[in-house]
């Protein structure tokens, strides 16, 4: 269970651009739930992900995982049990290393990064199996530089690699936003499959209302650092894209858009 308790976050405190984003923000996420998060730009969706992962800190409040306080744990240590996919496919893999090298790196995430050779011939077949499931032909591109892969290919690879090792949380930050519709669908199918198979607690931030409605068992809509809609289970099932759009417009009009 992931809990955010009474989070206060201010950007650029004490300057002209000071912006108080979160004021006494709290959220609890059940184990193995798949949460979709939507909201306008600047509503705090990505900031919330950053706070959970530890990329940014908070002034007040606590972050707890299963009761343990990780508020001051460094990002890279939190990442041991977290897999994160970014909107920019380039952030999920090393461009100048080959597909195989990237796979070896992520495969060793929970092992010692010492002076043992990184290629394990026995694992190569396993990698090929994992990649062939994508149906993108990546299993034949092991020696290709990641930088020469397409956005969709790279994002798919990132997804495989992020979930390769034993993790508890999957953090998806608009991970299909930079992809064309067909590739986005492929990635979303893959996402759902992995989440189901590995029983991952998933938080997915997206601008795509269709995905938000179709995937996941809980939906949050955020606005100005607050949760304005929290639909879970059957309540979520009743939501439609039109209803969501309606809500969006309401909030926008309120703010004078």
């Amino acid at each position, binding site marked *: 269970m992931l809990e955010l308790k009474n989070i206060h976050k201010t950007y650029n405190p004490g300057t002209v651009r000071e912006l108080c984003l979160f004021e006494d923000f709290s959220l609890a996420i059940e184990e193995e739930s798949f949460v979709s998060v939507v909201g306008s730009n600047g509503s705090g969706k990505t900031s919330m992900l950053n706070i959970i992962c530890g990329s940014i800190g908070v002034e007040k409040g606590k972050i707890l995982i299963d009761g343990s306080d990780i508020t001051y744990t460094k990002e890279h240590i939190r990442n041991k049990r977290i897999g994160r996919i970014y909107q920019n496919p*380039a952030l999920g893999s090393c*461009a*100048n290393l080959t597909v195989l090298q990237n796979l070896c790196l992520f495969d060793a995430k*929970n092992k010692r*990064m*010492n002076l043992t050779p990184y290629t394990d011939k026995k694992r190569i077949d396993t990698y090929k199996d994992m990649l062939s499931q994508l149906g993108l032909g990546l299993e034949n591109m092991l020696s290709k530089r990641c930088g020469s892969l397409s956005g969709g290919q*790279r994002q798919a690879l990132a997804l495989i690699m992020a979930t390769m090792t034993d993790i508890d949380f999957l953090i998806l930050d608009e991970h299909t936003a930079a992809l064309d519709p067909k590739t986005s669908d492929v990635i979303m199918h893959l996402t759902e499959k992995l989440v189901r198979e590995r029983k991952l607690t998933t938080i997915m931030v997206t601008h795509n209302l269709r995905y938000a409605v179709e995937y996941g068992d809980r939906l949050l809509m955020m606005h100005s650092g607050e949760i304005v809609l929290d639909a879970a289970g059957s309540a979520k099932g009743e939501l439609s894209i039109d209803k969501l759009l309606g809500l969006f417009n309401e909030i926008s009009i309120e703010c004078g858009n």
Partner: protein
Amino acid sequence: MDILQAFINSVPSSIEQGLIYGILALGIYITYSILDFPDLSVDGTFPLGGVVSTAMLLRGINPIICLLGAMLAGALAGLATGLINVKLKVRDLFSGVIVMTGLYSINLRISDGNSLLTIPRNAVTLFRNNALADFLPAGTSSLIISLVIALFIKLLLDAFFSTRFGLLLRATGDNEQVVTSLARDKGNVKIWGLVIANSLVALSGGILCQQQRLFEASMGTGTLVLGLASVIIGTTLFRSANRDYSTLAVLIGAIIYKLCYTLAIVLGLKPGDMKLVTALLFLGILGIESLKKGGNKKHVRA
């Protein structure tokens, strides 16, 4: 003696110099190419290795132990640069400059204030008065020993890059986000990279001092430029899509650089002009590289 003859006669010593400086270039390859960290401290680390090795040698210590001492000193210098950059959050350029400036005084302390230290003819160095040197034919022993050392270091480095940590180091220079996603501290990895690179730079300085039997306080000036030029010349000329020939390329780049200088001397170019030649060489190669690339590695094809 005509120019061609003079040049040909100078080739062996140029190659020897190129091989020794090639080790320095390998160190700069690690910081500049792999870590994407412009480490300016090398102008101080190179003579640091030289003075430590020479000071130890003059006290009768085994030449190989002297070189290990030089490497340790270089490692400490790299550690300093890394800590200043990562923990104190000082910009990479400035971290290197701070260490280089500090080393200037430290190097003079180690040499007891002398700007010149000479090693006597009968002293045991890596190049003279030892079993291997006496065994090899007189004219070429120095060149062969340099070749052996340079290749040894190259192979060691190749082996390192085939390890998990070596791969992690490469990842750090390519995409720090990945390193964090791998639940590793990117700062620590960077520091290790600086430690390894600077120990190679210092080793190169130590070897050079044993080869030329003297340490001179200003020997560090221009080593960053020399190293960068070697790396850039080598990696630009010897690109391969299939295998990574980088370490060999860098060594060859250093040799080519030294040969260019030798050619300039033999042609009678004024030494002042040689710096201009270096600048033009740099410009030419970097220009070609940039025109060829035309892209940014942080963006992805649609």
